[in-house]
């Protein structure tokens, strides 16, 4: 049973590169927290500081009610699963699993029971007498998870554990890990997880909450639905969701109506946007997800007019790439609503779903359209 608390954590590497800029994060007991962000945003650095593999330059890490800053990795009550498995190459799977318990000088029968139980859970019993080099990637990763599981740690740490697996295996391992987490939770075992990935599908499907990072700072921490619907800034908005949210440079003016000028066109919005705005104008980014744009009927007003540069047929959906002056938009329409004959001379008119439109300050990237619930 342990919650993980991170306070103003900083990391400056030996070459005086500041990788982590004072982040604070609380992971509740039993929570599955995903750290996600582009490459180099210091996800691994943060995780390794929690594990104790990297020294802490500033701030504080607490696991349960202990400050662990100066504890050795083995004393922090954490276990870690590495991207490339990091199984001990000279030991059989059995010894790999048991290594941690052996170091703790647990009695032999206890170790054997624990090994069996873990092997059962992860379906690796037939592999117990193999060496790591005799395992497939998926099997090796299961053993690595087993090695973490057997210690019954307070906090599980995963550093991109699935990125060396092929897509299919990744999907099944994803389910396996979330199932495992639910099961530990149900059985009342400690099951706090910090899971690092750069794959937003993994983040969205696995995390109770997601912590989006960029350049050593936290951009937003929230559950997947909130993150998707109410991104606090343009970075999160662009990072979460696929294809990416369209972010269009424009100018906002609030006088009477809400008007956003984009290139040579003007969109007006009513109270469904105005009600949640907390600024009265300025240079902005208008954010609309590709799924929230629809093709306008010919008699509809207040649409964006553009020209279709190409079309990708994905099966159940169609991706339209639309140019509005020098702004490139992606539009996703369900296949059954896409009728090529409607588009004459590649001209297309698009209407954004008003309730799903976001407006970001262009300077700071802050979402200025979140103030009241729309």
């Amino acid at each position, binding site marked *: 049973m342990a919650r993980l608390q991170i306070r103003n954590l900083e990391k400056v590497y030996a070459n005086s590169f500041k990788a982590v800029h004072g982040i604070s994060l609380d992971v509740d007991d039993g929570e599955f927290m995903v750290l996600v962000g582009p490459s180099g945003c210091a996800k691994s650095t943060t995780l390794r500081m929690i594990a104790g593999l990297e020294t802490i330059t500033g701030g504080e890490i607490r696991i349960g009610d202990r400050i662990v800053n100066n504890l*050795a990795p083995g004393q922090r009550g954490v276990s*870690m699963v590495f991207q490339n498995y990091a*199984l*001990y190459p000279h030991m059989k799977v059995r010894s790999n699993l048991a290594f*941690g318990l052996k170091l703790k000088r647990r009695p032999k029968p206890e170790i054997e029971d624990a090994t069996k139980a873990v092997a059962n859970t992860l379906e690796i019993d037939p592999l117990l007498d193999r060496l790591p080099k005799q395992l497939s990637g998926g099997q090796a990763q299961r053993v690595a998870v087993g*090695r973490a599981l057997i210690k019954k740690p307070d906090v599980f740490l995963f550093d991109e554990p699935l990125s060396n697996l092929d897509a299919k295996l990744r999907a099944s391992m994803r389910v396996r890990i979330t199932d495992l987490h639910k099961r530990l939770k149900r059985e009342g075992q400690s099951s706090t997880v910090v899971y690092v990935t750069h794959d937003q599908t993994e983040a969205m499907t696995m995390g109770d909450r997601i912590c989006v990072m960029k350049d050593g700072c936290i951009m937003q921490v929230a559950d997947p639905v909130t993150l998707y619907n109410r991104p606090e800034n343009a970075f999160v908005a662009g990072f979460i969701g696929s294809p990416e949210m369209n972010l269009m440079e424009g100018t906002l003016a609030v006088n009477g109506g809400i008007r956003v000028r984009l290139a040579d066109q003007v969109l007006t919005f009513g109270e469904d946007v105005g009600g949640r705005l907390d600024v009265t104008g300025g240079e902005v980014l208008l954010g609309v997800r590709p799924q929230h744009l629809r093709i306008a009927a010919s008699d509809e007003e207040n649409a964006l007019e553009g020209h279709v540069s190409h079309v990708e047929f994905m099966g159940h959906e169609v991706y339209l790439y639309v140019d509005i002056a020098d702004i490139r938009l992606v539009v996703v329409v369900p296949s059954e609503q896409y009728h090529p004959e409607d588009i004459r001379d590649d001209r297309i008119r698009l209407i954004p779903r008003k309730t799903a439109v976001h407006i970001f300050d262009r300077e700071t990237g802050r979402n200025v359209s979140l103030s009241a619930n729309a």
Partner: protein
Amino acid sequence: MAEQITVRTTPELESARTLAEGRRMHAISSAVRYALLAGVGFLMLYPLVWLIGASFKTNTEIFANPGFIPSEPTLNGYIQGWKTSTPYTFATFFWNTFLIILPKTIGTAISCAAVAYGFARFEFPGKRILFATLIATLLLPNVVTRIPQYLLFRDLGWLDTFLPLWVPSAFAGDAFFVFMLIQFLRAIPRDMEEAARVDGANTLQTLIYIVVPMLAPALISVCLFQFMWTMNDFLGPLIYLSSVDKYPVSLALKLSIDTTEAFQWNRILAMSVLALVPALTVFFLAQKYFIEGISTGGVKG
């Protein structure tokens, strides 16, 4: 009809002929190649073959007969040689060699692994300078340090003991081995060691349970090299050992040359053959690991 047949078969015949010709050429060229290789190989091997042959000759025959097959083979050289002209038999000398080699090799393996681990995995103040020192000792010709070393060990009162032969190696004095292990370690990813630390291993446990097993092929090479070099070392024992009862084989061989007026070459040769045996045996037993160790640059399994 007949004409037609000839016409049709000519190309086939021709191709068969060229095929046969090709095969003959191939046979000739490989015959030449093997003859050449065998010749050169024999040339290189000849001294060794002659040594073994001559060790079964009588002393007079060695100089009379240039061939390597003894006309009347005798074990006399071995029997007399083993007894030596000193109160000790060669058994003593072999035992001394063993006494020098064993602690030295073990000391080398332990100290070099520890030092290499330190250099390869840890950041500490002065690391660069210390590493430069290590490389400098590697570049320094051995002879240069002989006299200062001798003076040092004399002042410590270690002359005529095995200590001057053991101690430097037990403190990772063989920079080459340290360097080799560092290079080897650099090619091994750190993840396993980090996993071990998360599993609760301290630095020493990580070294013993994780690093050393992964280093095993390189360590075996280190031990083998140290074994063979110590076996063949002549200068070290010559400088530091003065009483005959402490002589290793390498010195004892020279002893037989010193003490007899007319050199009993057959005895010397016989003992030389025996002196070769341990190194060869160890080499062949460990050949698999040895080759593995040399060829393990960075590829990990």
